[in-house]
């Protein structure tokens, strides 16, 4: 049995029972979490591994991790077999990295010293950190903007997977929008997420090129009821009434694709929007205006007119153009699972932070999910403080059935 380099660091540690229980490779999987966390983080989910295989892809309803590296790729080959081989190689690497192992079987610092290592090394000694890697396929994979069917996939394009309509006020930059493929890498350690994306890009060289990528430093949504609600860069709790993993009926209705008899059953559609927040303008608004804009109190997160965060929203008590009033499921008539992250991408050259929310949401159909919600936000008082600068829509297939399954097996069947 080949031991991962991180076994070296893990030699002293025991514990991390949760990781070992996942079984993946036995010894190889067990190491790093125990070493780095050293038992001090007992009871924390930080460090553990999230199963890569299952009915649904991880990274959707699994607990939202703290860090994100999202990447969109364009496929640069026209050869279907080459693309399939790369997706298989990606799956293998993803399977390994989500277990906390090196991206390749040889590893970062062993092997032929005249060959480039098959792992880049910056995650040596780091635990799995709850890494999830979630793949999605964009509309242009099936048919280019010019209508070319490069990979014989045009007749497999789901009717739901179409470019989003234009929305009022958006200022999309094409070079950071769209993409043939996307990978959402989430982890509790930013270096683990970046390591995963970097290695997938490395493996994909010659088959795909990075179109754009986005880092997110803090989660802005909860996807399970036992997670506390985080705050976004407006300073407000975000995602209080998000769909949660423990609401299976709602997930089946709003998030998972089912009953289509296609390769997408068990999958979900992802919409990404980079939403720049004009935080300097926002910060000049008085507290009452800020609360009236959001529709919640800034301190507790309670809806206006209520006292506790999770009190039911009373639409009659909210300012009618507040964000919560317009976006809430009881008004929008639909629900989406949000999984966004805050970002700060340096500054904008005008003395202001280029900051905001990288909004990600999952739904069973973008038309009755994000599109319906966003259309309802036309009069949202929050629009004054946000600009959508990037947009993407992707079909995320169901989870992998077992150790031989690979990303895209259903689509390319």
């Amino acid at each position, binding site marked *: 049995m080949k031991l991962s380099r991180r076994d070296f660091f893990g030699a002293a540690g025991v514990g991390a029972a949760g990781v070992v229980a996942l079984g993946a490779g036995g010894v190889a999987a067990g190491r790093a979490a125990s070493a780095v966390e050293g038992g001090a983080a007992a009871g924390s989910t930080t460090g553990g591994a999230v199963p890569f295989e299952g009915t649904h892809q991880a990274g959707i309803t699994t607990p939202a991790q703290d860090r994100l590296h999202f990447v969109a790729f364009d496929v640069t080959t026209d050869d279907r077999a080459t693309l399939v081989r790369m997706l298989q190689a990606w799956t293998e690497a993803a399977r390994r990295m989500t277990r906390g192992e090196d991206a390749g079987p040889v590893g970062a610092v062993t092997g*032929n*010293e*005249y*060959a*480039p290592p098959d792992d880049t090394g910056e995650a040596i000694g780091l635990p799995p950190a709850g890494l999830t890697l979630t793949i999605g396929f964009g509309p242009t994979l099936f048919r280019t903007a010019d209508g070319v069917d490069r990979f014989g996939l045009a007749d497999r394009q789901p009717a739901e997977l179409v470019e989003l309509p234009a929305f009022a006020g958006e200022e999309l930059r094409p*070079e950071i929008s769209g993409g043939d493929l996307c990978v959402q890498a989430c982890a509790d350690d930013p270096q683990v997420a970046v390591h995963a994306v970097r290695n997938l890009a490395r493996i994909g*060289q*010659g088959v795909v*090129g990075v179109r754009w990528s986005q880092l997110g430093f803090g989660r802005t949504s909860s996807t399970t009821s036992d997670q506390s609600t985080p705050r976004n860069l407006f300073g407000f709790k975000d995602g209080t009434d998000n769909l949660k993993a423990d609401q299976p009926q709602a997930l089946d209705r709003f998030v998972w694709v089912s009953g289509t008899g296609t390769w997408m059953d068990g999958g979900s559609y992802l919409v990404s929007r980079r939403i720049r927040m004009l935080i300097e303008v926002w910060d000049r608004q008085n507290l009452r205006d800020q609360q009236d804009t959001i529709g919640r109190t800034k301190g507790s997160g309670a809806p206006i007119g209520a006292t506790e965060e999770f009190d039911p929203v009373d639409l009659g008590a909210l300012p009618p153009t507040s964000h919560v009033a317009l976006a809430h499921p009881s008004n929008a008539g639909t629900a989406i699972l949000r999984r966004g992250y805050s970002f700060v991408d340096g500054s904008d050259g005008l003395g202001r932070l280029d900051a905001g929310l990288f909004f990600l949401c999952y739904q069973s159909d973008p038309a009755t999910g994000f599109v319906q919600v966003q259309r309802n936000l036309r009069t949202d008082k929050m629009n004054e403080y946000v600009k959508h600068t990037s947009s993407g829509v992707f079909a995320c297939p169901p989870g992998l059935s077992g150790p031989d399954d690979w990303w895209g097996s259903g689509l390319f069947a």
Partner: protein
Amino acid sequence: MRTRSTRRTALVAAGAASLALLAACGGGADAGSGGGEASDDIAVAASDTSCEVDATELEAGTHEFTVTNNGSSITEFYVYAEGDRIMGEVENIAPGVARSLLVELPAGDYQTACKPGMTGDGIRNALTVTGEAEQLSDDEALQAAVTDYTRYVTSQVTALQEQTQAFVAAVQAGDVAQAQALYPETRTYYERIEPVAESFGDLDPKIDARENDVEEGDAWTGFHVLERDLWATGDLSQSGPVADQLLSDVDDLATRVQSLELQPLDLANGALGLLDEIASSKITGEEDRYSHTDLWDFQANLDGSQAAITSLRPVIAEADPDLATALDEAFAATQAELAQFAAGDGFVLYTALTPAQVQGLSDSLNALAAQVSQVPAVVAG
């Protein structure tokens, strides 16, 4: 013209010398029977659109080709083995000039090529050689690769000396148009073998430093100073000493190359190094920031990388046939990507490329470099 004919003689002499080296290192039983003497003289009539070789079948052994350039562009002549491994080449054949090439060919299928304008795949003809086939041990195959590539370096550096002389003469004469025309062509011979120059440490900075490579207080010399004078200021009145220094540094390079001792791994690493050069400074348009002739350098780096890999190709094909094929395909793909931007005897300026076109070149280069990065481990065995 007198200078040129003298140099022609010198080149043939150099070719014969390295041929003797080749025969000494790895020649088969019959290959040396001619003792480096060619039994024939095959005429090659090159023009801008044709390449007529006066032979399609040859016996194994040493052959001489005499290439006459009847066209209007500088041309080159190559004999390629499978996978475009260069068996012999003659560079820098100016219009109206004839040059000779001595090459030892074991039995096999070859292609000849004229490259008017020094770019692209060239005008190809099939050449079949019958008789004794080459049987080399692994070590002999590696040594043959080194000999092959060493000969390539020698021929490039000789052409570099000649071309630099002409370029420097134009600068000294204050002929801006002529010097501008010669600048990218001259650099081609340098950029093809840049890792070799870099191996001498002090020479590459003297010949090829860009302004921001030079530390405060150090003198900035070489091609890029003259590039600035030619394109940014148009003032050659102070350029004389820099031009003289360049010629002297190039001559120094040529002298040092004569005692060059390469290892097989140097070829593999050099091939990757040349692609890294493209990725770090040509694809960004940083290299030739005044003239914007970066695509000439791109082509030269690419050709130099390919020359090193094709020298190693028999070794690679033996150890990892799939990699050999993948390398062939990846080089062809990048050559084709770049060929889209050929214009006249050269290329469009870097500034004429759209971001999408630069992206296409970069994607293609990444795909190629990923394959080339596998070669050192194969060579190291």
